[in-house]
């Protein structure tokens, strides 16, 4: 890091990737975690079977910019609103929330109304996820 960067106090984007609920599909979450790391971000991976409470507590303690939820179980309409409510309750409404996995189109619209910034389905290029994450946080 150069002196100038140091003075500007730049820090990498911090992202928490969580798998809420009983969903055991973790390939997508791991691929996205690695892609974001390779793009220079600090990625906290929580592992499987997290409750919304655990995810939000981890996001708070890790002071992340982004919370990414990976859900392929179909339970997104209960899990995602729970996470968003808990974030709000902790005064963390400024944290960017994104969701990936198997999410039907109409549900994706519903989640966006609740405050989810983007929903990424199967086949999404990781480059697109990296670009979106940078743009939504406003840092490299």
């Amino acid at each position, binding site marked *: 890091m150069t002196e100038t960067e140091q003075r500007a106090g730049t*820090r*990498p984007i911090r992202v928490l990737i969580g798998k809420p609920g009983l969903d055991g599909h973790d390939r997508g979450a791991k691929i996205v975690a690695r892609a*974001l790391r390779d793009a*220079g971000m600090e990625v906290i*991976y929580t*592992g499987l079977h997290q409750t919304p409470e655990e995810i939000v507590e981890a996001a708070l*303690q890790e*002071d992340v910019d982004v919370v990414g939820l990976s859900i392929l179980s179909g339970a997104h309409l209960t899990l995602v609103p729970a996470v968003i409510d808990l974030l709000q309750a902790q*005064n963390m409404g400024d944290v960017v929330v994104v969701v990936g996995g198997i999410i039907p189109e109409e549900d994706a619209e519903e989640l966006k109304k609740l405050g989810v910034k983007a929903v990424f389905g199967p086949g999404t290029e990781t480059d697109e996820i990296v670009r979106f994450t940078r743009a939504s946080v406003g840092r490299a």
Partner: protein
Amino acid sequence: MSLGQEILRGDRRALARALTLVESDPHAADDIIAEVYPHTGHGIVVGVTGAPGVGKSTLVDRLAGQFLARGRKVGILAVDPSSPFTGGALLGDRVRMEGRGSDVFMRSLATRGHLGGLARATPRAIQLLQAFGKDLILLETVGAGQSEVDIMGFADTTIVVVVPGLGDDVQAFKAGILEIGDIFVVNKSDRPGADQTMRELRQMLHLGPQRTWLPPVLSAQAQQEIGVAEIADAILRHSEVRLTDPEQRQRRMQEAERLVRDALADQLVRGVVSRSQADGRWNEVLAEVAERRLDPAGAARALHLEQD
């Protein structure tokens, strides 16, 4: 209310934000540290180190459970390497943590380069957790090289974790890790060869320099929570021995010296660099060194003499 005051009142969000500050720019946190410093230094800082995958995080989690049950207030710092190429990091130690809600405060720290930055951020991160009220801090780092030993210098009790067999323990001993361990844990003792590894370790420790505290070698299966209570007991015993040690005051003085020296070096460098940058001398001198017209030490001398 200042961030420091909020931390002292037990605000978790304030603690999290202050940790971000000490990680990103040590100086941004100078005033916070100044505010909370009188409320730091208590309790026990336990370093847990060892090769990748030996079970450090699992052990840290089980120890956290043990100490919570014993009425301690537990904080965890888990350090993982940043990629030297991209600066990114995958911080995966939380995967091993059982949900303990907000009872345990855990923070994952990336090394962010090797310029001593982490060595500077670590004592501050510990101080913030202590100011917040934590009196048992578990500090996990991957055992690899000198920065490791630096970070472990901030722990009161250092646990070195190894696993049976494969000779990788021998490598760990070579790396000088034998000297920094106050407690040795042979984890995954469900695997063959645990007894032999324990024997070898004990022998090597007996060969080492005489110390008032002979490091115990304990076996564990962190995953199954076997042997964890004994490790917690050993930590508390080591802590008592340490506190009654007549050299304790001297050690505190050494620690203080290191912290003040670091801060001094830091402030002086920043002062000289920012003033040289302001009057344009910085880039001139860098160019002279790059073109071999001036040596680096000579350049440094010129820069700070010019400013006196």
